[in-house]
């Protein structure tokens, strides 16, 4: 909406357009659906409090990701008050996630998760912003407030380590078929 419109209306448009993106971002990273709901609420509360700072267009989503990242990283989030409405949002997600996540437990999924977990948090976040939120290195740089070159370096390093980790794990560790280890990424070394 044009800036001549009331800020309440412009905030509603921002919220409606970006809510699910930010909620998905938070759900994929927070310790629980309830915590994710808190992150979403805090992120948009910050956006409302600093509404004049929120960029327009596509940049708004990157700005919100950046705020959400800081909310997630804020070790003070324990001070947050539970709210019945936010709890409801978290409960809705918890209910759906229970029925939607059967795919996470398959053997290959376990290996991928282990590879992700093996990464330093900064490299991991760059990698998942690329893979999950499908952001370009330039966009990730905006979210994390670091130079694009740094993002590219971290992204390259993270991908190399994940490939190596996946190749380095014997398949029989997670594959009950007992077949020989399969290199997911031929040409890349094992665990470094």
């Amino acid at each position, binding site marked *: 909406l044009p800036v001549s419109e009331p*800020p*309440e209306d412009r*905030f*509603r*448009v921002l*919220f*409606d357009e970006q*809510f*699910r993106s930010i*909620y*998905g971002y938070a*759900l*994929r990273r927070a*310790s629980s659906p*309830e915590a994710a709901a808190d992150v*979403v*609420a805090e992120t*948009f*509360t910050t956006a*409302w*409090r600093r*509404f*004049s700072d929120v960029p327009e267009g596509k940049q708004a989503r990157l700005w919100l990701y950046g705020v959400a990242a800081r909310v997630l990283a804020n*070790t*003070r989030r*324990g*001070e*947050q*008050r*539970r*709210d*019945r*409405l*936010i709890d*409801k*949002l978290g409960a*809705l*997600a918890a209910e*759906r*996630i229970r029925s*939607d*996540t059967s*795919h*996470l437990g398959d053997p*290959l999924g376990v290996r*991928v*998760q282990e590879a992700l977990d093996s990464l330093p948090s900064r490299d991991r976040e760059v*990698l*998942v912003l*690329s*893979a*999950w939120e*499908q*952001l370009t*290195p330039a966009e990730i740089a905006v979210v994390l407030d670091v130079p694009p070159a740094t993002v590219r370096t971290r992204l390259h390093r993270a*991908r190399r380590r*994940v*490939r190596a980790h996946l190749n380095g794990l014997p398949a029989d560790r997670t594959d009950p078929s007992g077949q020989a280890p399969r290199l*997911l*990424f031929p040409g890349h070394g094992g665990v470094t």
Partner: protein
Amino acid sequence: VTTRAEPEDEYLDTLLRTQMLVRDEALADWDLERTAVAVREEILSRPGHAGRAQRDRWADFSTGRFRRRGAFVAAAAVVVACVISGVSVIGRHPGDGAYAAQVVASAQASPRLLIDDPAWKVTGVLFDESTPQTGEMRFTGGDQHAQVNWYPIGLLPGYVADRRPVSTVVGHIQVFGHPAELLGPNTGAKGACCEVLTALNDKIMVDFSGPRSVMGKLDTVDVRRWLDALPATVFTGDRRDLAVEDMLAGLPKPPGYDPTPVQAQALNSDRYQLGAAVVASVGCAWFMRWFDARDRHDQVTADEASQVLRESRDWPVMRQIQSQGDYPMIFKIQADRTHDGVKSRFPPLTRSGLMTTLGCTGPR
């Protein structure tokens, strides 16, 4: 869209995407609309964008969480809330020493918590008499603040699990006669050092945050002492009935409007909450008339209802409460949406949506 040169990167990303707890395309199918709108409106009800802070009397108490103001707090038509502010005596005529039975019953439903320190004053109470196991109180002592929330006892393990990763046990104290861990630092209410999560009894858990000096001073008290400690103007008993009649008298009512529900509410509140309840009662009746007319394609009646709703900003009770919270603003936004000439990017008004945003409970 990412820029990837190597097919291996695409394959790796595909593998990584298998580990997404929730995919955006799945999230798109979740029925989140009502809750999302409710969260959005609650955020908007908070002090935020320039110029709004002055409209929210709870700003001083803000802990970074939502205050049940605006749409939700003000939707007092469904919430029998006791919100206290100001400095006078509730539920009795000054000096007569007797509380109305209604007020006593309300106090009896509450856990009646107080900080046992004369330097600390109650500044706010919010609880729902129909769900007395949930509520909150706020206190100030000089320039310091403390807050206690209470919930059903079954939530205690979840609260402990929620705080454990981000808190440190900084000590042990006695609360309600039994030992409890003192969590800190930087948890709880604004400026607070410490937080205690503990059971009050076999039905209620308590989440108390504040300066360390008061953490061991939270206690339960009898009805009289608790009521004496509430420094608020609350409309109750005869005063409440007269106030409701006065507020109703200044409002246009739709044909068939029944004031009985709002007149019969055992609502103990300040003028803002009471006013919001009255506005919800009459305003929602007009909204329902507008919906019904639209449903039967009666444009004349729909236009008449829309006109009344859009003129609600001039209702005396609106003027009385508009400086005290955001309910009038939220009501105005919904009222404007009944006007077909107003272009809106928002979804059409729905009865259930009004229940969420204004507290309309159904046909009246």
